[in-house]
């Protein structure tokens, strides 16, 4: 169905529904993400955001409907990088070893310099030789981000990657990510609970209803992607308006507090 | 397998080999080994000595074509010559005849006074051994049915242990455990008595047929040194017990004691009708082996009793008696 599609969408979900046993987690959902878009997913805890990412990454098969990434049924590890909600570091490798492994899988030279560079990019210096349990929770999450950044996939899926970070670190990484997506034309799908983050990062924000997650709001963010300093951007009146609109959609749960 | 690859006797190797299986019972075989008699007699041969701890495993080794010559009890030989094994080997020597070194002993306080009173008692013996055979022969002789006694399978050292605890009423075993249990028991019958009654148990020297065919001269040399060892036992007990003691990790005195209880034939006796016989006439040994086979058949341990002629064929008498001198 997608081979005839002229503008090959980075992601195309058609009538997707996913069930775990008799629990319907998401759907039905129709969603098309063109290449280069920065899509932010927002929704209540347990509404199916992680499930959606797993579907796109190919870790789950949809119960109904079809999922296509670059026109093909997605296969884990091919074409899409995924930062899971939990850091999922390999305890048998040092912090640097975790990043090096990702470089190796990507077919890149896993030199200590390259590893340090990636760690530096997420604000971690001098922890390359530590064991994974010898760093703090936020640091673990950042290692997971560095690992995913090592692989340069056309599609990047991030599941609440900045949840355990302080405001300053978070902003730095947000800016980095915004720059990456703007410059490399990668497609990003980003899950967050922070409305501010959603508006700042997204070129489009989708709000999901509580379980089963359906699309409650699908909002293009018209803010300029480049040129403006972060503070300027946040200062814009449209920014506040978008925040308010998304915030309201997130808070509005009365619509579908039914269980599947 | 690599063991069998050498073939029978390594007939065409640059140095011919003889693979000998021996067991840890006192006999001339150990003197031959300890004093290197065969090595002296056959300097052109490479001779390997392998210790086995039961006739059954020696039979297995013959099946695997891993040995050429072996010291083995008459009971396993009877098995080996019968179907289904039909091992192609021949009896070429009588190493010793069980005498007072194998006996049936009743424990003091068990109330057993003779073989007949074993009814309903617990008797131990190592199954499938010459002692097992002798025990059943003794019971038969006394008119006791096998199922009237409770016969327990125990290795000699275990007999000694169980005996001390008082778990057994009687046991048919050999040295050294026999010596231990005799201290607190009474000998009911020994293999020497059974031998005179026509149920002898022997330790034999057997040679694989293939080896006999390939190296008859080596077999002759081997028989000669075994005969020489018998002479040493008779003539120089001190040298004999020193050699046997060294092989069995016993003091010469202990070895002497053990040797004295066995029956060692004179080389000349071997060629009499009572044992191997001569080239013209195979001796009573064949009959004895057939009767052992009949016993096994009765026990359902073999498929069929071999014909006497076949067993006579399996007694190697070529060159007897002159070859022993």
């Amino acid at each position, binding site marked *: 169905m997608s081979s005839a599609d002229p503008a090959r969408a980075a992601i195309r979900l058609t009538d997707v529904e996913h069930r775990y046993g008799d629990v319907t987690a998401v759907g039905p959902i129709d969603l098309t993400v063109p290449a280069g878009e920065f899509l932010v997913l927002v929704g209540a805890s347990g509404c199916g955001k992680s499930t959606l990412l797993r579907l796109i990454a190919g870790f789950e098969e949809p119960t109904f409907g079809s999922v296509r990434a670059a026109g093909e049924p997605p296969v884990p590890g091919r074409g899409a990088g995924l930062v899971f909600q939990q850091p999922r570091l390999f305890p048998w490798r040092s912090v640097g070893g975790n990043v090096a492994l990702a470089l190796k899988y990507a077919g890149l030279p896993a030199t200590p310099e390259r590893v340090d560079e990636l760690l530096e990019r997420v604000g971690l210096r001098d922890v390359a030789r530590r064991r994974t349990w010898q760093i703090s929770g936020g640091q673990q999450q950042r290692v997971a981000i560095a690992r995913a950044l090592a692989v340069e996939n056309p599609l990047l899926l991030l599941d609440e990657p900045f949840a355990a970070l302080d405001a300053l670190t978070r902003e730095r990484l947000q800016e980095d990510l915004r720059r990456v997506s703007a410059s490399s034309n990668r497609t990003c799908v980003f899950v967050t609970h922070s409305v501010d983050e959603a508006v700042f990062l997204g070129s489009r924000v989708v709000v999901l209803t509580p379980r089963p997650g359906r699309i409650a709001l699908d909002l293009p963010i018209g803010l300029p992607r480049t040129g403006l300093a972060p503070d300027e951007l946040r200062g814009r009146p449209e920014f506040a308006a978008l925040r308010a609109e998304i915030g309201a959609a997130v808070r509005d749960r009365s619509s579908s507090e039914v269980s599947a | 397998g690599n063991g069998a690859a050498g073939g029978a006797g390594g007939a065409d190797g640059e140095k011919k080999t003889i693979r000998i299986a021996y067991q840890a019972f006192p006999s001339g075989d150990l003197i031959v080994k300890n004093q290197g008699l065969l090595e002296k007699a056959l300097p052109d041969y490479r001779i390997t000595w392998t210790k086995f701890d039961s006739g059954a495993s020696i039979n297995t080794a013959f099946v695997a074509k891993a040995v050429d010559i072996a010291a083995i009890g008459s009971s396993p030989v009877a*098995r080996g010559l019968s179907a289904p094994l039909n091992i192609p080997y021949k009896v070429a020597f009588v190493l010793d005849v069980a005498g007072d070194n194998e006996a049936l002993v009743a424990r003091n306080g068990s109330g057993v006074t003779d073989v007949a009173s074993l009814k309903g008692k617990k008797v131990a013996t190592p199954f499938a051994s010459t002692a097992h055979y002798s025990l059943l022969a003794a019971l038969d002789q006394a008119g006791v049915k096998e199922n009237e006694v409770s016969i327990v*399978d125990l290795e000699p050292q275990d007999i000694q242990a169980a005996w001390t605890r008082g778990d057994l009423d009687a046991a048919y075993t050999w040295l050294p455990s026999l010596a231990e249990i005799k201290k607190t028991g009474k000998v009911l019958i020994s293999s020497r008595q059974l031998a005179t009654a026509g149920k002898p148990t022997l330790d034999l020297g057997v040679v694989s047929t293939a080896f006999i065919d390939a190296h008859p001269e080596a077999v002759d040399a081997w028989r000669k040194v075994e005969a020489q060892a018998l002479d040493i036992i008779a003539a120089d007990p001190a040298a004999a017990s020193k050699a046997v003691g060294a092989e069995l990790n016993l003091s010469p005195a202990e070895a002497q004691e053990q040797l004295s209880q066995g029956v060692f034939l004179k080389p000349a006796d071997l060629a009499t009708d009572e044992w191997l016989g001569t080239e013209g006439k195979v001796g009573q040994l064949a009959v004895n082996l057939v009767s052992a086979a009949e016993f096994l058949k009765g026990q359902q341990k073999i498929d069929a009793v071999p014909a006497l002629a076949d067993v006579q064929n399996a007694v190697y008498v070529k060159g007897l008696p002159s070859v022993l001198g």
Partner: protein
Amino acid sequence: MTTSLSAPPVVSTEPALPRRSPLAPQGGRRRRVALRLLALVILYGLWELAARTTRNPTFIPSPGAVWHQLIQTSTVHDGVRGYSGHLLIEHLGVSLRRILIGSAIGVAGGLVLGVLMGVVGWLRVVTEPVVTFVRALPPLAYFSLFIIWFGIDETPKLWLLSIAALPPVAVATAAAVQGAPTGLVEAARALGAGRWAVIRDVTLPHALPEIFTGIRLAVGIAYSSVVAAETINGVPGIGGMVRDAQRYSQTDVVVLGLFAIGLSGLLIDALLRTAENRLIPWRGRL
């Protein structure tokens, strides 16, 4: 702006793709049974072939001969009951009883020892070398001592089997207990769990998979020790039967005995695996 809020769930027209996880065993129950049958048939063919080419029944008895012995040893024929006066099933039953009691004692002992070794520091320091020492000892070497201590009836056999079954459970338990996840131990303690509550609610459940591996190994080892245990007064008993047959080179009976042992072992292991799968739904989820 809601895109497909009320669209009914439509069954995809595409065929469901198989799960691509490389670790998931593929195929269902039917397929498994078919594969095993195929394997059985192949093994049987190989056996028949080997028996025919070697043509030496002491080397490799033919399937027919073993089958014949199965009939012989399971019936009363010519006034003789089975083998050595007992039917095959009786031999097997007696041995199974020994194996089960022996493994049960060994497993229980191994569990207690393993937990203590894993948890109590000074006890580990002392017992671990002892356990390592003992498990290196060959049962054939010390079995005579058992006779002196326990006689020649059931007791020494049960002791031998218990001692054979104990080490896998003890070692596996101790190792698993020492590897208890710090995070969960701390979580339990933060909730107010005492020392033994932590062991009961965290350490042991976490160790369960390894304990099960230990138990499965222990039962297997008890099985494979049954001949050694039945060297002494071992008839009736499948080990005693095999030993006897071996000494008379009745290879067909030996092979029959091996089948009886192997197949019943397979059955017990299947039961253990079923129990394991029931009891450990969280496997792979830590």
